[in-house]
């Protein structure tokens, strides 16, 4: 299934750094998010768009992950040549990620 079925997302920008939140609609799906949406997968999913490091932060209290994507915005909104200079549309791309449905063996992939 697609990530969009269990989570919603918003993109923000600061300079040349983009952040994308991934928030589970149901708290029960948080562990699945943690297992499926790793920083490595996000980096691979945005190959060609994101040139720097991807860092994942975990927010169990609101069943959300926050991804920080460095060197992702063509130099930042004030100088980027991109049509979407803020990168605001990137959250929609992340929600297109294919994820495995939750199984019985879902491990506790979150550290916190």
């Amino acid at each position, binding site marked *: 299934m697609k990530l*969009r079925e269990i989570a*919603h*997302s*918003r993109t*923000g*920008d*600061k*300079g*040349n*750094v983009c*952040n994308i*939140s991934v*928030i589970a*609609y149901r708290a029960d799906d948080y562990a699945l998010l943690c297992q499926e949406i790793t920083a490595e997968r996000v980096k691979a999913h*945005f*190959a*060609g*768009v994101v040139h720097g490091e991807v*860092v994942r*932060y975990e*927010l169990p*209290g*609101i069943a*959300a992950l*926050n991804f*920080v994507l460095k060197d992702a915005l063509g*130099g*930042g*909104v*004030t*100088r980027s*040549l*991109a*049509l*979407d200079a803020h990168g605001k*549309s*990137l959250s929609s*791309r992340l929600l297109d990620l294919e994820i495995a449905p939750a199984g019985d063996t879902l491990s506790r992939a979150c550290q916190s």
Partner: protein
Amino acid sequence: MRTIRIGAGAGYSGDRIEPAVELAEKGALDYLVFECLAERTIALAQQARMKNPAAGYDPLLAARMQAVLPICRANKVRIITNMGAANPISAAGATRSIARKLGLSGLRIAAVTGDDVLTKTKDADLALDSGDTVKGLANRVVSANAYVGAQGIADALAAGADVVITGRAADPALFLGPLLHEFGWAMDDWDLLGKGTVVGHLLECAGQITGGYFADPGVKDVPGLARLGFPIGEVREDGDLVVTKVAGSGGCVTAATVKEQLLYEIHDPAEYFQPDVVADFSQVAVEEVGPDRVHVTGGRGKPKTGLLKTSVGYVDSYVGEGQISYAGPGAVARGRLALDIVRERLAMTGVQTTELRCDLIGVNALHGEASGVGEPYEVRVRVTGRTETLAEAVKIGNEVETLYTNGPAGGGGAWKSAREVVAVASCLLPEGAAQLSVSLVEA
């Protein structure tokens, strides 16, 4: 325990005006805050001020003030805004003139200054996050403004201001200021300052927490976006927050809208750097406690760093752009041919670009080639390039426009532009570099 009500009347410079009028009329507010300053806005405003010493404040200031001043006066709502941009003093003068024309005699308007740190930034010759140094940019630097904290706003309110106009205050500080003033929070009570930062961060983008920037039909439906209501924060003396909006306005306030905004433009949620505090959002919890009412708890804080993020605006380059559309069978192939022709023409005619981007809108403009699935009915060619001069930038759009009569079949709707790019880079300055002061005028 006391509670105050703060409304957010604008989330960016060009935002809608009627939602703020609705808040002033029906929000039972104590404060109405307008956040209107983006990263680059202040650099452009400094350029405007260089050309005209009376200019350099927000172009919509007059329209917003005319719309809300009489209502705010009648309902005892105090206004706080960063619409002063590069010239808070001039903005305060303009607001006084409007107040006088509206017959609001005695209205007190404060300008908070001190965020302009251009001289000190040049002297310190700091390294910028762009890899440049301030000295390296030399005479291309047009501005340096520090993100200052809430104290100047609190001082202006204590001095009796009905309207407080700042320049580059940190966005959450526009909301933290009245909380400091009303509740007398200590400037080293880090948890309270952290909670106040949660309030400011959630509200500062106005409609982005009431259902704006959120709707996704069939998945996340939002009613009434054409008459979106802007948010109200009910803030208790202990920092406890309920986010709501005017009953009957469009949009919605839900746990989901609040969570999305909580993480908007956040990096490490445990360390949100602000001039007055390092706020910690990592333990924040949200709970729906009624229709369009969300209770927010758990904000915390750590001691401030003593450093201020400073935005340095500089003339970076020039950008030329051209667009043209193709439709129907073979549209993508004709679009790709058009891009090939423009690339060849730019090379043949020796147009010097330091960066060139060739997109097919509808195919790959937003997320690159990886995004393409299926062939769209129509595409729009977009060529944009960075140059050292405006004259070179103009040539890029020209090479797209001439596709009308020289390019593939059926190209329509050509458009071109060329512009100077003022970019912004940041550095950190010791907080002592920004000495805030408040000046008050009366209508």
